[in-house]
């Protein structure tokens, strides 16, 4: 059975909510005997749910290739991870406050002692909560936007808070009676630990495949297309998927040993793996100067942009912006190579004629694919993408399945215009370039 993105998300939320729902079975009338008792119950439940959501969010960070597909790609899986983490954070902030407010029904000193006592469980709880605040601060931009690598490093430490939180939970847990507490927390923690160790240990030694850089093309002044030859097993992937690339070139000025996500531009059947990279930051700028014959490491593939080849074919409308052409290029190259039928209309949005990437090759591919068309949209001439432009270029746009890839402002713009044309949200698939 194929899981849809919605049902996969529902399964994850259910897993996260299970410990708290189980706790509801063990409530007794004294939990509702007074406002103070109800606050105390809510305080305990927010603790259980916060901890469980945190464990499940940690579990989602494993990034096993293929695991992201039922969720509609890694970006969607990360968004789910963000939502779980944010809700967990809110619940965990409420947890000590509700318990203190509950004790305030006895007296103010009782409330303050609930928050600040020298019992080890309470101290562990504070250590975990403060650590969570520190490690999550860059994720929520508490003190401004964080730099990517620093954010990534600090965010990894959030795993530590999960362990601290578990110590606190196991010292105190009374809402899940008897063996239920240790069993439930043990299972959830084991799943999270497995996921974290996959990411930190296994993927580092076995998940990253070595490739050798054998050719460099320059489709524009600030774009390179790297051709990579596998030194071990070659990656199996679909058009539109992306990989994490880690360069090892000692000459690199920045980003050596750092992994960053890039979309594959080659067709899956090609012997060489091709990746087109635009200079968008320190690491991608340094990659423009990568030396031939050096080694890079590739982990993936991730993402699910295009429909699976088994799905019944439907006419497609593609909207690409700038370097966002890469997944479409991969698909066009693939269909031209294999002779697979493709009914797609590509609207390629760029600033002006000099910014068209792979222009010559795109024209050749269009000529080889009789049912597909390519229209260029120049911002300097047309202004922002309008629905009238889309309709003029592709008269049956509203009946097509839409795929958008490019910078966020263009995606937002195109999505709005397509919805104005009557394309339902469920028929618009997007691939954003965001922090991953």
């Amino acid at each position, binding site marked *: 059975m194929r899981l849809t993105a919605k049902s996969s998300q529902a399964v994850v939320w259910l897993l996260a909510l299970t410990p708290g729902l189980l706790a509801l079975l063990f409530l007794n009338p004294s939990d509702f005997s007074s406002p103070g008792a109800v606050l105390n119950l809510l305080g305990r439940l927010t603790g259980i749910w916060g901890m469980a959501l945190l464990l499940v969010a940690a579990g989602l960070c494993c990034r096993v290739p293929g695991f992201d597909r039922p969720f509609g790609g890694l970006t969607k899986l990360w968004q789910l991870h963000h939502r779980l983490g944010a809700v967990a954070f809110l619940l965990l902030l409420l947890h000590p406050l509700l318990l203190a407010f509950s004790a305030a029904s006895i007296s103010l000193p*009782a409330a303050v002692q609930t928050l600040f006592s020298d019992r080890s469980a309470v101290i562990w709880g504070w250590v975990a909560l403060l650590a969570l605040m520190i490690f999550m601060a860059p994720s*929520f931009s508490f003190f401004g936007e964080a730099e990517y690598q620093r954010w990534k490093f600090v965010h990894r430490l959030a795993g530590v808070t999960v362990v601290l939180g578990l110590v606190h939970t196991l010292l105190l847990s009374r809402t899940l009676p008897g063996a239920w507490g240790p069993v439930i927390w043990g299972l959830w923690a084991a799943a999270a630990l497995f996921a974290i160790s996959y990411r930190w240990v296994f993927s580092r030694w076995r998940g990253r495949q070595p490739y050798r850089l054998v050719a460099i093309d320059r489709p524009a002044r600030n774009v390179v297309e790297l051709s990579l030859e596998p030194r071990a097993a070659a990656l199996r992937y679909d058009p539109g998927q992306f990989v994490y690339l880690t360069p090892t070139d000692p000459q690199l000025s920045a980003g050596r040993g750092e992994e960053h996500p890039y979309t594959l531009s080659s067709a899956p059947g090609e012997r060489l793996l091709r990746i087109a990279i635009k200079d968008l930051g320190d690491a991608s700028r340094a990659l423009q100067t990568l030396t031939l014959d050096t080694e890079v490491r590739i982990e993936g593939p991730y993402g699910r942009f295009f429909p699976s080849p088994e799905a019944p074919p439907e006419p497609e409308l593609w909207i690409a912006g700038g370097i966002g052409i890469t997944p479409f290029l991969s698909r066009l190259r693939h269909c031209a190579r294999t002779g697979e039928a493709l009914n797609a209309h590509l609207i390629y949005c760029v600033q002006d004629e000099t910014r068209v990437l792979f222009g010559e090759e795109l024209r050749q591919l269009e000529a080889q694919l009789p049912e597909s068309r390519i229209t260029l949209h120049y911002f300097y001439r047309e202004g922002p993408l309008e629905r009238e432009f889309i309709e003029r270029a592709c008269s049956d746009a509203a009946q097509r399945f839409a795929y958008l890839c490019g910078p966020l402002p263009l995606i937002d713009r195109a999505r709005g215009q397509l919805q104005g044309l009557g394309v339902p949200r469920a028929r618009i698939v997007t691939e954003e370039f965001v922090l991953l």
Partner: protein
Amino acid sequence: MKKTVFAAFVAFWSSVGTMLALFALAPAATLAEGETEYTLEEVAEHASLEDCWMAIKGKVYDFTDYVPQHPAPPPVLEPWCGCEATEGMTTKGYGRDHSPAAWESMEAYQVGVLSEAEGPE
């Protein structure tokens, strides 16, 4: 979402700060003078769930009205009625202390103190 979380973060520290400020500013509770003294024999006369007294850390409590509200069911409390129950309070029978809130909530049920000569402390 980021704004919501940041607002919650600020609200959290404001609430903790408010609670601490109120605690620091509120006048300390005065201790009652001339408390009634009881011996352990007198406490032992109230050894049923219908009339349940306990001596804990030198103080004497009448928990009769509290028994139905206790989170653990009444039979758990029954053996401690009429007894020196500090151990029950500090271990819950399985090595875990009651919460500070629980300790604090006992005050409402105090009826006196244990005679000087007796009691563990």
